[in-house]
């Protein structure tokens, strides 16, 4: 009995982490749909979200909610700068996929290096948002942070659905995903859409980073594992499908939790990478099939 409740416990926390992966995965899809670019610097947004919030909260005593909001704004600003000075020149030159990937990976490394210089190499964490003992359902404990993560993810998902379904900008972004040239002929500014996609994707990453930090530590180098996990989520869900990516994230979170139960915690990243390779080698189009 104890064994079973332990397993359920681990799977529940897996779902929590899965929501985070899903949000990051959506970030990939948003940029990919607008431009065909796969942004390998996605993990840096997650890391920066957590780090900037932590910095404001501990070093300057800014309240948590405000710190979080400022952090998201900062990360969005950084993403727009990256889009302008790195991605745009390459995009204008029609650089190959590979050059774009290498450039965004280099951006990730530069941002990590800058964070290391500013904040040092010590791992940091955030306090939980609601400091209450976990809810108990039977023998399974559900922490308030997990509820925060799930609730915030749900709000974001519905918000995105409304954004893509009902707003002009959202519809324009979808048009770009379907056919960029046709969208341009309709008078949609494809390049503006690219900038907005970077901003949106960065906001998603930063929020994910802020939500997940209280459950674990953050440091300058946490970005890449999150980037990989988000990419796996996007692949499993079928690249370019935002909501597929979210489901993919949940699936990955649970799989990872399962692997930790069976093989021990050392296999957490190994399990994620194994899922990635299996999907790439066997079914690169994901479970639902790619968007295009």
């Amino acid at each position, binding site marked *: 009995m104890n064994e079973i409740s332990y397993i359920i416990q681990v799977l529940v926390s897996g779902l929590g982490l899965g929501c985070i992966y899903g949000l990051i995965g959506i970030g990939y899809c948003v940029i990919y749909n607008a431009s065909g670019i796969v942004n390998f610097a996605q993990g840096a947004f997650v890391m920066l979200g957590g780090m900037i919030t932590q910095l404001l909260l501990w070093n300057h005593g800014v309240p948590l909610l405000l710190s979080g909001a400022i952090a998201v704004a900062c990360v969005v600003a950084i993403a727009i700068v990256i889009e302008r000075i790195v991605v745009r020149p390459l995009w204008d030159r029609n650089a190959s*996929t*590979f*050059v774009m990937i*290498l450039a965004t990976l*280099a951006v990730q*490394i530069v941002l*990590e290096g800058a964070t290391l*210089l500013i904040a040092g190499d010590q791992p940091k964490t955030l306090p939980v948002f609601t400091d209450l003992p976990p809810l108990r359902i039977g023998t399974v404990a559900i922490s308030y942070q997990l509820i925060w993560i799930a609730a915030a993810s749900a709000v974001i998902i519905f918000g995105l659905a409304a954004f893509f379904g009902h707003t002009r900008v959202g519809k324009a972004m979808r048009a770009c995903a379907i056919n960029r040239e046709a969208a341009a002929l309709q008078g949609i500014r494809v390049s503006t859409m690219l900038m907005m996609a970077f901003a949106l994707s960065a906001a998603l990453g930063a929020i994910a980073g802020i939500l997940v930090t209280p459950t674990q530590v953050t440091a300058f180098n946490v970005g890449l594992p999150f980037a*990989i996990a988000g990419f796996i989520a996007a692949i499993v869900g079928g690249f370019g499908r935002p909501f597929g990516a979210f489901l993919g994230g949940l699936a990955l979170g649970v799989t990872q939790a399962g692997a930790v139960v069976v093989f021990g915690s050392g296999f957490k990243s190994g399990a994620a*990478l194994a899922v990635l390779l299996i999907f790439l080698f066997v079914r690169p189009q994901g479970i639902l099939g790619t968007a295009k």
Partner: protein
Amino acid sequence: MRLHATILQLKAMTAQQSGSRRRLLAWLPGVIGVAIVLYTFIGGGYLVSVVSFGLIYALFVTGLNLFMGYTGQVSFGQNAFAAISGYMSAVLTTTYGWGVAPALACGIAATLVVALVVGYPALRLKGHYLAMATLAIGLIAYEVAVQWQSVTQGYMGISGIPPLGVFGYEITSDRGNLAFLALVAGLGVGAAALIRHSRLGRAMTAVAGSEDAARALGIDVARYKLLAFLIAAAYAGLAGSLFVHVVGFVSPEVYGLHMVNLAFTMLYVGGIGTIAGPLVGAIIIILLPETFRSFRDYQDMAYGAVLILLLIYAPRGLASLSDLWSGRARG
């Protein structure tokens, strides 16, 4: 009419001149690279070991260049192959008391086997799928090096690895290492040049140009991609093993993402797709932090930034210098 013909003739002559000048300029980076190695060898001092690392990296980058520059493929996971061979060398010589040469050969053989097993499914992928798959291979190698403590001793790493040598003769001096590595790197770059101009090299270039066109010419695209991948893995494995014997120590960090970042910066500085580029890029990039001491803490960041600038403004690295030159001559 006559005037027109004369003008054409003149044009042809200038083209020929700028062609030979370009050929000269193409050789220049290589000459500078060799000069730096010679200078350090004669001058001695701590730069000897720095340039030695540069030469090891030159081998690694030469392999990367074969796969990416010549064949037009993507791999962010070459560090995995360096790690496999490096750890194999380290474990066989320290735990099992093997000689350096058989351990090194075994390391490269293991690298090739893994590259074959991984490369076969991975190379069917394209674009960002291939990029992510290879990146994952590199990260898995890192994870294994960290987690498989009974063999790799995790973050602690393995120390006391014997220096390079064969039949009881060991290279103990830094100068000896430099001379040996210069020889190996020279052979490595020479082999790459031979491959470049062989049937294999032409097939690789054809694949890089257009896979469909190559296929139409009767080239077995999948086979040549895999072959290029295996050759690149062998270069990486050789570099990985040489590294552990020269340094005498290995830990997971040696083959981390830092190595990938460094290798790509070297490749782009030297000029991707050129023969001497990897050698020149490796030596220049390895010497930079020595020139600017305060640079050290910013290393990864600086390399990343240099890489971004090169990708945007000079995608062919030093090799585009000769374009600049001939452009000026023409203008």
